[in-house]
């Protein structure tokens, strides 16, 4: 559908939240026990952090939970009973989600509906409506300005302008949301796209050239680049980048239980970890830099080759939370031939 534009008065946001709670399972930013920002289910608008600050964890868990039961089984005497998980029926509204988080779903949908339809994921995805909040300022390490399609597929995006939110509706689900609470929204009569562009310029999120997509040709030649070994060897192999990433979606399937009762479940997994692709007698990615290289190239070469979009929204969490501050953007630029100097000056020199 063609984009539609509305105005939402800033003092109406609370009401929108409260009313939506009657119709949706509303997920919004709030603070956890340690005061960290998280996506949660705040009970009142007072507990909602309607801010553009990024929580450490992206919003992907609402479509792809970290741990999810696929089937339960129970053995009674000779009989074995197995049952799948019950479908969650309720519509979810992701309220005030960052654009970089919201945009991720559209990207990873490709893999979940590719040759195999992943019902648990797709079911939750179909039930979820995204109400994104545009950032008024760039975050610490983010780089969505370097990725061309950062808003595509996001149902609604609210831009905080002077006095009101300019709400851009991009999908039917978004339109349904606005229609449901139409009394809270006013029509936008000005040049909305121009206003958005001005806002972006000011926020520092306007698209810049060259886009990271342009690095791909270089990356395709860089697999055997000697500097991987030195630049990616500081990677400690933890799962922070993948687990905080809104687009990383790899999972592992595990069984828990015994011959009597148990379950099969899937949990997030990460290609930077040493057990990923480890087989009983062989680990093809036998050094850490190979695992890191896999992650980077999957995001910026293999995935776009297969599905089109980069597997990245530029949220920058993988830099912010990386214990050793490996900078994926810098590495893409360096190995993709957009930049001559390696980050930190480290070269292998072979």
């Amino acid at each position, binding site marked *: 559908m063609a984009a539609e534009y509305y105005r939402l008065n800033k003092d109406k946001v609370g009401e929108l939240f409260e009313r939506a709670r009657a119709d949706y399972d509303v997920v919004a930013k709030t603070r956890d026990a340690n005061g960290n920002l998280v996506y949660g289910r705040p009970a009142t608008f007072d507990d909602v952090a309607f801010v553009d600050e990024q929580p450490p964890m992206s919003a992907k868990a609402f479509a792809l939970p970290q741990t999810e039961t696929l089937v339960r089984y129970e053995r009674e005497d000779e009989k074995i009973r197995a049952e799948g998980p019950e479908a969650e029926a309720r519509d979810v509204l992701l309220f005030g989600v960052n654009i970089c988080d919201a945009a991720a779903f559209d990207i990873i949908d490709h893999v979940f509906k590719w040759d195999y339809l992943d019902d648990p994921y797709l079911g939750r995805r179909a039930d979820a409506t995204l109400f994104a909040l545009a950032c008024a300022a760039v975050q610490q390490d983010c780089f969505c300005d370097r990725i061309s399609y950062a808003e595509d597929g996001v149902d609604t995006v609210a831009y905080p302008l002077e006095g009101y939110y300019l709400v851009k509706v991009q999908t039917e689900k978004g339109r349904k949301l606005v229609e449901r609470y139409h009394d809270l929204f006013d029509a936008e009569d000005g040049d909305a796209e121009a206003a958005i562009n001005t806002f972006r310029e000011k926020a520092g999120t306007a698209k810049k050239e060259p886009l990271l997509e342009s690095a791909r040709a270089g990356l395709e030649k860089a697999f055997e680049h000697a500097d991987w070994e030195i630049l990616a060897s500081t990677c400690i192999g*933890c799962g922070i980048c993948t687990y905080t990433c809104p687009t990383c979606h790899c999972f592992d399937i595990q069984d828990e239980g015994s011959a009597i009762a148990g379950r099969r479940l899937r949990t997030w997994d990460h290609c930077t970890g040493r057990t990923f692709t480890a087989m009983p007698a062989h680990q093809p990615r036998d050094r850490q830099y190979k695992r890191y290289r896999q992650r980077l190239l999957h995001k910026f070469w293999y995935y776009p080759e297969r599905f089109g979009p980069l597997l990245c929204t530029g949220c920058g969490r993988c830099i912010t*939370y990386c*214990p050793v501050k490996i900078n994926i953007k810098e590495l893409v630029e360096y190995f993709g031939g957009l930049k001559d*100097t390696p980050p930190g*000056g480290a*070269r292998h020199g072979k």
Partner: protein
Amino acid sequence: MATIREELQAAVKKLFDDDKIDYFVGYAEDYGHTFPAILTKDSDPSRLTFDRKSYDNLANFLPELRGSRVGLICKQCEVRTLNVLAAEEQVERDKLVVVGVPCPAMLDPRKLTEGAADLDSLDESYWQEKCRRCLERNTPLADVFVGERVSTPTPAEGWPLLEEVEKMSAEERLAWWRRQMSLCIRCYACRLACPLCYCHQCFVEDNKPQWIDKSVAPENNLHYHIIRAVHLAGRCIECQECSRVCPVGIPVDVLNNVLSRDFAERFGYVSGETAETQPALTRYERDDKEDFIL
């Protein structure tokens, strides 16, 4: 700290020029961060630095470089780590060039607000807890020392966060840890940032048998952290990297500190004191004190 930066870069260049090392492990400053970097002689050392955000325990990178001659920036944290690693025969000291530095005390990234002006002037309240306990700011064992030696303030006593948790009742502690563990995402950064967690395969990765369930649930997460603390008993040198790297802010090191403090009191044991200190759990005294065995 312009001088230390220049001295450091010159020292590293000399080590490469004199063919003393194959790799240098230090900190580089780039794109707004200070981060660990592994350099070869063909690298550009001009980004090398040592500042108050030189957080990482660099001994963590030694296993990857085993067999090569390595120059390593060592703060007191690394020195104690090296001692434990040496006792466990995990480092070849003769292949290591210890580059000593005067440690200005590391800042706690969680206490830094965006764009804090002058990092050098931030007082104790911005420090990491470990730095207040530091016994020696100038690297002992240094083969090369760069920068001006600094005085070491009187080490602080006590374990503030641990003691805070201990003020709670048992039920409150269980609830508190359960809450903390409900945040854990099992990224294992705590383990992987730990230079003493060098096992090729961690117990938590075992699946035959699968001692710790793979599902991310508070009790499974807690069991992982408890066993990790047991494995670090008498080995942990309290560098607090586990807590620093935690993306969800769990103060993981509190569990390690429980044992650090207890083993010091009970066995008079300080981990990493010397390269000969054998790990506490691989030793015993006939009269080890305990008060719970029937």
